[in-house]
């Protein structure tokens, strides 16, 4: 097995393991972990493809097999980043809403505008 393939497989497994551990330790929420699992599995699939990767490389018009892996890697990451950007946008909206609620609650409770240190 060529060195590149071994490295790719190791990397995919490492990514899978890291994601799994982070979810297990509650550092990463399940809903966001699915993106990373998909990426890791996708990468693993590519690294195990072997000969078929060469065929795919020719089909896509790349010169080197490593280019194919790289491009797919970038596409996956793009997908993850995009999804996360959307998640961040949603969170920002929710956070703004919460801050509004807090200010209105503070008003109801008769406390001042200065939240202190």
């Amino acid at each position, binding site marked *: 097995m060529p060195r590149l393939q071994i490295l790719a497989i190791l990397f995919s497994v490492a990514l899978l393991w890291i994601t*799994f551990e982070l*979810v*297990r*330790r*509650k550092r990463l*929420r*399940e*809903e966001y972990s*699915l993106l990373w*699992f998909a990426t890791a599995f996708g990468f693993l699939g590519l690294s195990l493809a072997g000969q078929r990767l060469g065929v795919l490389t020719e089909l896509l018009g790349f010169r080197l097999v490593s280019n194919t892996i790289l491009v797919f890697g970038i596409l996956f990451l793009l997908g993850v980043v995009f999804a996360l950007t959307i998640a961040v946008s949603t969170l920002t*909206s*929710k956070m703004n*809403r*919460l801050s*509004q*609620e807090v200010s209105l609650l503070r008003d109801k409770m008769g406390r001042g505008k200065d939240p202190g240190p």
Partner: protein
Amino acid sequence: MKVLVVVPAYNEEKSIEGVVRELNRHFPEGDVVVVNDGSADETEKKAGAAGAKVLTLPFNSGIGNAVQTGLRYALENGYSAAAQFDGDGQHNAADLHRIFDPVLKGETDLCIGSRFLEDREGGFRPNRRRRFGIWLISTILFLLSGLRILDVTSGFRAMNAAVIRLFCDHYPTDYPEPEAIIYLHKQGLRIQEVPVTMFERSGGISSINTLGSIYYMVKVPMSILISHLRRT
């Protein structure tokens, strides 16, 4: 013994009034709190009109967060036991005693009202696809924990103060019911199932569709497995 019924509700203006009235009729000894999960309709107003205490979340965040909000209310107000009762009219208020009794007697920590334990006349059972999904999850749960729970997705459950405290600390999001079982089991708590009747959804739309079903069948088994592998 102060007992609380937590009613999570999202856009259930059609059924919430009936739900609250039934709860007051069949379970007057319990307090009712409706957790309005950022409904866009008249859920809050209707629940209040029927006489329930309403907690309104500023935006929709899912059943996990809504139930946890109700449980935090239970914790902060010193309730010794609480039950989840869905706001869509599927749960039967007359069965509340069935799930509360084992908990209040100290026989168990979590008591789940199950649609599948007895062949009860007039009870509503979900369609074939859902039943298969539930069976699959139940089997996975059994293989991992040895717990034989048939209605793993039933939200109709009663719990004591120990469980309330645990859920306030960590309650799964998305589809919390099966994962919560494994979580409690890992903490060494007792879980029991009793037969109850449920009704068909009286109003509103179910939150599970086809794409959701795929997400469900991937996410829930995964979550159960990870929950099983957690140390705490």
